[in-house]
Structures are given as C-alpha cells and as structure tokens.
C-alpha cells in the first residue's frame, strides 16, 4: 500500500464521517481545519479508519497523533 493510496482511502473515510464531499486531507491537516472534528468525532474517525483498513489502532497512537500525516504513518506501520 502506497502513501497516496492511504490518503485516497482516508479522503473517503473523512467524507463519510464528516458528511462533506469536498473534504481533501493532506499531511498537515489537523482538527482545526475541519469544523466538526471534536474529541467525539476523533474516535468516530478512528473507528471508521479501523473498519476501512481492517486493523485496530492502539489507544497510545489515538491520543498522540497530531495530524493526518501521522495517521497515515500509523496506518502504513500497522498495515505492513
């Protein structure tokens, strides 16, 4: 799985979770860039990412990830 593929699938997940077809996420995208991304939606997002990529993200990663780039790093690491 390439980084580009991960971002493509992440865009799909973000659009589904935030109900917004115009969302395009990048390496530096954070919760500040998406209006509804609060602590509740953060977990919703993590669960949706887990469903999309079929693995569990440990809580240690959930609480420390700073932006979507880090989320992609975690996905690539866990998906090896």
């Amino acid at each position, binding site marked *: 799985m390439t980084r580009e593929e991960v971002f493509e699938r992440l865009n799909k997940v973000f659009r589904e979770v935030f*109900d917004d077809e115009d969302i395009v996420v990048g390496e530096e995208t954070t919760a500040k860039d998406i209006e509804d991304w609060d*602590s*509740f939606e*953060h*977990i*919703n997002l*993590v*669960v949706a990412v887990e469903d999309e990529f079929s693995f569990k993200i*440990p*809580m*240690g990663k*959930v*609480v*420390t990830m700073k932006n979507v780039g880090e989320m992609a790093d975690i996905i690539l690491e866990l998906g090896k």
Partner: protein
Amino acid sequence: MTVTSFGFLGLLAAGVAIYYCAPKKIQWIVLLGLSMVFYYYAAEPFTIIFLIISTATAYITTNLMPCASERIRKHISGIAVMGILINAVLWFALKGSSFWLAGARALQRLIPDLNIPVEGTLVSALGMGYYTAQVVGYILDCYRGVSIPQRNPIKLFLFVCFFPQLTVGPISKYSQLQSLYEGHRFSYSNLCFGSQRILWGFFKKLVISDRVGIIISAIWADAGTYTGFWPWCAVLLYPLQIYTDFSGCMDIVLGAAELFDIKLPENFHNPFTSRSVQEFWQRWHITLGIWAKDYVYYPVLKSKVLVSLGRWTKKHFGKRGAKLIPWAVGMGILWFVMGFWHGSMRHILGLSAWYWIILVLGELFAPVLKKLIQFLKVNTECYSWKLFQRIRTYVIFAFGTVFFAAPGFHAALERYKILYTSLKNLNPWIFFDGSILNLGVSWMDVNLVIIGTYLLVKVAYLRVHYGYARIWIQKQILPFRWLLWIVLFLLVLIYGLYGAGYDASQFIYQGF
C-alpha cells in the same frame, strides 16, 4: 503551610538559591528535598506513606511491562489494572469517605443494633486527588507505550510529590514533567516571570477572591434578611470568587515551578470568554478535562459496547442519532468520573448532572437553534451576539456552582428555592443605597473588587493578543514596567486579606 504563606515564600527563596548553586546532576534531588520540607509543614507528615505506596505501585507495575517475558506479556493489561486499582482503592478509602460513610449510615438505619462509625473524615495525603490522577495516567501511558517507565524509583517519587503542584494540581502527565530531571542554569527572565506570576496569583486570591468571598458568605449566612436580588448577586458573583481563588493559586503554583525553570501545564485559558458550555470546560480546569478525556472518555467511546451502540443507533435513528446517543452516554460517564473525583454525591448529582443535562440539551436543540438564528437573520459574528453567548455561558456556569458552593446537596436545593422565592421581593435599590456596606465590606473593598475585575479583563485581553500579559509588559519602557509591578506589590501588601498569623485563608480547591 499554604502556598500563600510567608513560610512558602521563604522556602521558595531558599530553594532557588540552593537549586542553582547545586550541580545540575543533583538539582532534582534538591527539588525532592524541598518537596519533603513542604510536605512536612503543609500536611500530616506520616501521610507521606500514601505517596510512597502510590509511587511503589506505579514503579513496580510499569517496570514489569517492558521486561515482561512472553509468558507475562499477555497479562500486561492485568498488571496495569492492578496498579490502577490499588491507587483507586486507596483514594476511595480516604478521599471518597463521604461515599462509604453514606453507605454506613444507610446500613446503620437498616440494622440499628450495629454500632459502626458513621461520622467524620479520615486523614488523607495532601493533594491526593491530584497525584493519584497523575499516577493512574502515568501507568496508563506506560501501558499504552506513550511513556517509557522511569527506572529510578526516587525520580518517580519526585514526579508524584513535586511540591508546588501538591496543593491544587495541575494534573501533569509524566511526559510534561521531564524537565524535573534535567539540569537548569539560572536565568534572570525565569526569576522575573516566575515572581511576577506569583505576585499576580497573590493579587487574585488575596485582593479579589477573599473580598468577594466576604460578600457571598454574608448573604448566605443570613438568607432570611438578604432577599430579593441579594441571593442572585451571591450566585452570580461566585464564579468570580472561585476563578480568582483557583486560578490565583494556579498562578502561584506555575510561577513557583517557573522559578526552577519547570513549565507546568496551564489549567485555565480565559474561561469567561467561552461562547458555549462545551468551550468553557475546555478552558476551565484544563488538566482534569484532558485527563478525563484521555483516560476515560476515549476508552469508553472506543469500547465495543459504545461502538456497537453507535452502529445500532445509526441504523435506527440515522447519522444524527448515531452521534447524539453514544456521545451523550460517553459524556455522562466522563461527567460522572469528574464528579466522583470531587469526592461527594452532591458533586455527582448536582454539578455533573447539571452540566451534562445542559450539554445534552444544547446538542439536542442545536439544529433548531441554528435554523432559528438563520430565520431571524442574526449576525453571529457581531460583538453583541458574542457578548450574549459569553454572558449566557457565565450564567449557566454560575447556576451549576450552587452545588459546589453549598455545604451539601440539600443545602444547594434550598439555595435554588431561595433564588426562586426571592423573585417575589425584588429590591433594585440595593445597588444604589449603600446596602452592600452592611455585608462586612467598605466602599474601598467594593472599589478594589471593581478595579481587580477590570484588571482581570485587561489581562485576559492581553493573553489573547500577546500569549501572556507579562510578554506585553516586558515590551514596555523600564519605568512603566517597574511602576506596574510595584503598584501591584503594594496593592497585595496593603489590601491583601491575610488570615490568622498573616497567612491567607485556605483555597477552595485545596480539599481535593
């Protein structure tokens, strides 16, 4: 010894001198020594044993994690749970005594022949609620791989007992306090910033909070006489009292740590600028909120039960239901834990339940309100609308604090009743005829509270634009800077309300 006592200031002065004279490698030992001296004078010395037990459990459990053999590795979660349970049980036995004493009273009523002790409180360790939360967070961080376990038990003990934060927090994460173990070189700017912050904390506590406290106490002490607008004044002034008390203490604590070049996490970020209750709780007692979010809210939301509930509600109630119902359940558990941490049923039933209901109602009616605002073409970005939202948030917070300020649950309900009945007897002239002077304060006191409140607003404004008011002050010309600090110092010295032995009264949040 409280953090507003002369003893504490003396300890700080001596501590700073010894700390910067000591070689960098052993500076953390100086901090440990200072913490022990502070504990000896601030609490029952023998209760240090509870801090030692907490440290020992955290040390043993976390150090078992990385070196665990394959056979033990699968039991790592059990090891973490064990460490957390020991600390939680210890906290519950001592700090949560009001819960089990209530249970004992109920049992006594059922079986009158039993002669079990049902009154009183137990001696507990200083700041037990704060350091227990830190230890639990540390164990979980190590379990989650966020922190590396500390191999030196004495260094870990310093994380638990670092003296400025033992009184009222903040609840720091282990990763935030690594500078405890690093050597620091003396810096004039740290000395200035730390002292200035301590002075500002003294001003908030001794000049504003304690004066407002006199007015509020006098009103509630004679609620039969002070009717009409008086109880409303008491309720609406309480946020000012508790904010200047709690955040004033935090300023002293953070300033004291800054003297040693240690940055503790902030607990307040202009809470009264919040435009919603949700935003307010992200700006008030921030470290408790983050603790509850990271170690309670997130795991609950990500649990199988809540994820399944989310899927079920999405199927039956659509996307909105899928958000609202699991969110309300998660928030309910979060608020229950926060109320429980405060250590009494009135905090759970009153304080937590009140804010939880407000938050749920806000979320439930958010779409309706949004449509109404659009229909009425309200400009939501104009100053007056933002001001309205801020006042609304303040009033909602003030009403919730009745449970916090009253001596018990029934007393709080009684106060709500007084608020309601007092509406039948409105007396607007009390604001103009000098009646306030009957409450044990003079015009000078009233003026000092008004000036103090103005300064609070000014500092909040500077914080928004400059990060900290001190940064703005630092940019001013020398005579202005010195004049400002000297005036503040004199105000504290002359108008600070000192208690017995010239020590300030206790802090409201010190009991946790």
